[in-house]
Structure formats: C-alpha cells, structure tokens
C-alpha cells in the first residue's frame, strides 16, 4: 500500500512543490494544512503515516502542533521543514519526537531521501 502523507505548511507555494514531489514519487498525499488547527484536524481525521511539518505556522508554532499530534498519534513519523535560521526550534522538535528535518530550500532528491528514510524506520518498528 502507498504510504500516506499529510503536508503542513502555511505557504501554498511550498505545499504545491512538496505535493508534486511526493505524488510524483508515488506517495499518497492525503491532505494539506495551512495552519496548526487544520494540521491537528487533518492529522486525526486522515491518520497519515508521515507528516511534513513547517516549524513556523500562523496560529501556533509548529512545535506545539508537533507535541499535540505526537500525543494523539504516537506512531506517525514527523519530518520538520524549516529554512535555515530556526535551528533552535528544529533541535527542540527533534527532542520532542520529530523523526527528521529538511532544510528549505530543498531538492527533490533530499526530500525523498529523508521521507523514505523516516518511513523505513517506521516499517522496522511496526
């Protein structure tokens, strides 16, 4: 079965690019959220295998969203997305249970490598 991915980013441009990359690679993008509330709702509704999560979101920091989703879906893999400059938050996110992080701007290869790697871990532990 195709792995199911939820994309969380407040930029439509970024979401579109990620969606294209992931869909082209054969993943099933089950939803796109533009803010923390949508991310929580869509995560509990779609129960994805993996979430790409932007660290800076309009209504909440990505960090709070990460912690909430972690609590509800302990098995979901979360890959943080951030441009350089927010390493502090990214570190904290990794400590709070994020699987990996991608630094924007990203190349398609890098995204697929990191997403694929994170999902493989989940296969092993499941």
């Amino acid at each position, binding site marked *: 079965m195709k792995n199911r991915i939820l994309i969380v980013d407040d930029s439509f441009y970024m979401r579109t690019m990620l969606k294209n990359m992931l869909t082209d690679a054969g993943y099933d993008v089950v939803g*796109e959220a533009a803010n923390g509330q949508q991310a929580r709702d869509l995560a509990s509704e779609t129960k994805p295998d993996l979430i790409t999560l932007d660290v800076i979101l309009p209504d909440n920091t990505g960090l709070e969203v990460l912690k909430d989703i972690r609590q509800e879906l302990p098995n979901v893999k979360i890959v943080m997305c951030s441009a350089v400059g927010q390493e502090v938050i990214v570190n904290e996110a990794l400590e709070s249970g994020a699987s990996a992080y991608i630094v924007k701007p990203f190349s398609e290869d890098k995204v697929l490598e990191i997403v694929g790697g994170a999902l493989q871990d989940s296969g092993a532990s499941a």
Partner: protein
Amino acid sequence: MKSREQEYRELFMAEALEAYDAMSQHMSVLEKRPGDEGALNEVFRLLHNLKANARAMGHDAIGEVAHRMETIFGQIRSKERPFAGSMVPVLFSGIDVLGGMIRAVGANQELTENLPLIENLDRVIEGEEPVLLDDDESGSEEDATRKLELSDLVYIPIKKLDHLLNLVGELIIDRDRVLTLAQEIGDTTLQTVTAHLSRLADDLQYSVMDARLVGVGTLFNKFPRVVRDVATAEQKQVELTISGQDIQIDRNILQIITDSLLHLVRNAIGHGLETPEERVKAGKPEIGQLVLSAQTDRDNVLIRISDDGRGVDVERVRRKAVDRGLLTREAAARLNETEVHNLLFEAGFSTAEQVTEISGRGVGLDVVKLAIDSLGGQLRVDSKLGQGTTFTLVLPTSIAVKGALLFELDGHPYALPLMHTDSVVSLAPEKLHVVGGTLLAKVLTENIPVVRLADLLADNDDALLPANRAALTGAQDIIITNYNGRKLGLIVDRFLRQQDIVIKPVSQPLDMIDLFGGVTLLGSGQVCLVLDVPAITRLFLSRRP
C-alpha cells in the same frame, strides 16, 4: 499546458506580493504600537516564508535580505530587544527593498544584491549602529560613483491615454479615406505617400494600444485577500489558484470587469462551493478549489473563474425560470443544458436560496452579463452537477479597434463585430427548411434559425410574417451570429470583407434605435452602421412568428 516551473513562478509571485502588502501593513501597525505581538509574529512568519520560497526559486538576493530581517524580528519577537531606535528605518527600508525585488522578479529583471542594506542589517543584528543612508537611494551602487538618475517610468493619467486613443481613432478613419481617394485619383506618388502614411498610422495605433495594456495580475493579485475574507465570512475552506497574471489587456477593460470578477468570485465561494461538511459528504476533499486564470485566444483574452463545487442544478433552474414567468413549462423542458445555463444571465434571475451577507448584494449575473456586453465581449458558463462551474469571460484585448465583418443590405454597408460572428455560409434555398413559420438552416450538426435581416430591421414592432421560402432566389449569404450561446442566421444581400473598424457612438436621432452599437466611417467616406448582436437577437426572439 503550463509547465511546472511556470506554475511555481506564478505561485511564488502571488504569495510574495501578498506577503509584501501584509508586511507593509504590519509595519505601519508596529510604528504606532511597537510591541504589537500579532504584527511581530506575522512579519516574522512572512519573512521566513519569503526567504524559503525565494531561495527555492533561486532568488538569493531576496533570501539574503529576508533572512537578516527574519533574524532581527526573531530577536524582537523573543523580547531580546525592542522595535525601536535606529533599527526602525533600516527595517522599513528592508521591506521597501524586498518589495522592489519582488516586483523586479515579476518583471523578469535581474536581481542585484543590496549591499548597503545588508551591511546595515548585519550591524543591527550585532547590536551596532546602522550607517544612515539617503532615504530613497539606499538601493544604488557605492556612494562615490552614484549619479543622479531619474526613473525610466512615467506615470500617465489614464485620461490622457484615452484622449490619445480617441485621436488615433479619428486618424485611422481619415487614413482609410485618404487611401480610397488616392486609389480613385490614381496618382502613383500620392499612392506611395499614402501607403507610407497608412503604415505609420498603424504603428501609432498599436503603440497607443500597447501603452494602455496592463498585466491581468494587477487585478488578479488582489484576489487572494478577497477570497480569504469571503471564505471566512461564508465559513468555507477555499484554495485559490491564480494563473496567467502576465496576460496583457487594456487598462479600461480591466477596470470595467473588476466588479464582475468580484461578483463571480464571491458567487463561486458563496453559492458554488459547498461547506466542508457537505463536501466530505459528497466524497470531495474538504478544501474547495477556486481557479482564476487568464489566457490569450487569438485577439481575445479569456478570463476563467472555476470552482469544483456543486455545479448548476439544471432542473432547479428550469423550475425557477418557470416560476419567475420567464418561459412556459413546455418551453423550459425543451431547452438543452447550455440553454438552461444561459437562463442564469436573464434579468432578475437568481438561484441563491438565501442571500448571504457577502455574495448576495442584490446584483445578479445579468448585471455581469451587461458589463461584458458593453465591452463587446462574451460571458459563458459551463457546469457539471456535483463537479463544479466555470465562467468564461471572452474579452477584446483593446477597446479601440474591433475586427468586423462588412456586408451590404439595400445598397448600404453594415458591420457586424467578429466577436459575435460564428461563421458565414452561402446556402441555396433548398437547404433551408420552414418549421413553425421560421426558416431553419442546418449548419454542421445544428439547426439554426435564419431570418432576412431586411425583414427584421423593417420599422415595425409586429410579429414577423411566416417565412416564405419561395421568395428566396439564388444562394443566400448568411451570417451566423452567436450571442450567449444563442445562434441566429442573418440573410444579407452580399458579404463585403473583413476589416478592423473604429466604432463611434451613434448620434442622437439613431440613438433611439438600440439595434446599432455605433457607427464607423469607411474609407469611401460612407457611414457604416455597426449592428449590436445582443439587441438583434432579442428583437428576433420577440418578433419570431
């Protein structure tokens, strides 16, 4: 097909321009309330996005500035330092410079690093005093080599361009007259000079028309905001996709369709798209898609507003049209889907069950239709129940000159705008059939009603006499017109030619007859009436036997 690069570019531009507008607003809030957390968080977030997106697009010059600005706003946000003192003018000029760079990207210009600004931002980050720069010229080279430069752009009031265009219109008419006279006189030198004059006048005409063109993006880019506001008020979730911002169109045409576009977009969100719950029930994604696009099609610009909402319920429109007394139950049942869709544009027709605060402002689609008609354009609707609706505006690129088909009737020349002309055919009388007193011509697969234009224009309001095929002799020249999807064949005496014409409003006495959209002067000096196809179609419908 649009390439992915093109799509990314358009998305980037739309979001970047929106971010710039929003940041400018938040900055003015911060000027008054330096501690405003909402504004600080938003500027920080927008800079962060702009940086990431710009770098992904390869616009590193934007990334460099946005990155430093983000760092400073990060410090302010986490209360390490206040939004105050000498950093404020530097931050303001940072926003200005970002705006300039974004516009430069939109205009396909090469971006250059703004070193003085970057150095100042670095100083601010390190807590040092920035070096004061001249207010406006902070963007140019090192101070020593700076020259005084005036902008290459001139702002011109549109009124002046209107005047220029009118003059060109007059000139074109005289040019055609001089050309005809030169032909008649037969002097070769005169003909050479007039041919040259003619080319110059053409060039001038296109230059003036060109000067009036603006990118559709100037209007489209206001819509992300509109959509967000309307979606919030209507409690819908909407994702807007914009494309074709670079398509050029006459500024006045864009002005005239502004309200129509606003109305159609509000309509699409208010009535077209379902609520998230309804969408989920219908097996659709929660977020509704709205697409605003522009493209060129020969001499026209097509603007489309598409939603993936509930679509037009044809049966409901039929019922409503009957309830409103627009037509009988039998007539309504006979209409095909396209004809039913076109009922939406009839005056006073509205299918909205309930008038919502934003989308229902007492304006119907008929008003939109009238605005598009006034430009000589067309408005079409395509819809599939449950799948969505697309409105297409077919607009002329320029208002000055229109392609027209010239024909003769009773020895007088007439013109018919090409925008409303589907095709011209010559048919022998045997190919025409009389059904219910009306002539029908089979063109391709369609049966199209046909009428002798001379009969229709005869000064009489009574119903037309039943058609008499025996009165027609020889092949009939027929122009198939198209208004609002309704086709009508007009029998004329003789086709003349196709020609670009300048349409002038009709003067008083003729003004009472609204069958004519205007007049034009032909090279021969003859006055040529320009038929208004919407009016002719309506007249035919009211007088058909």
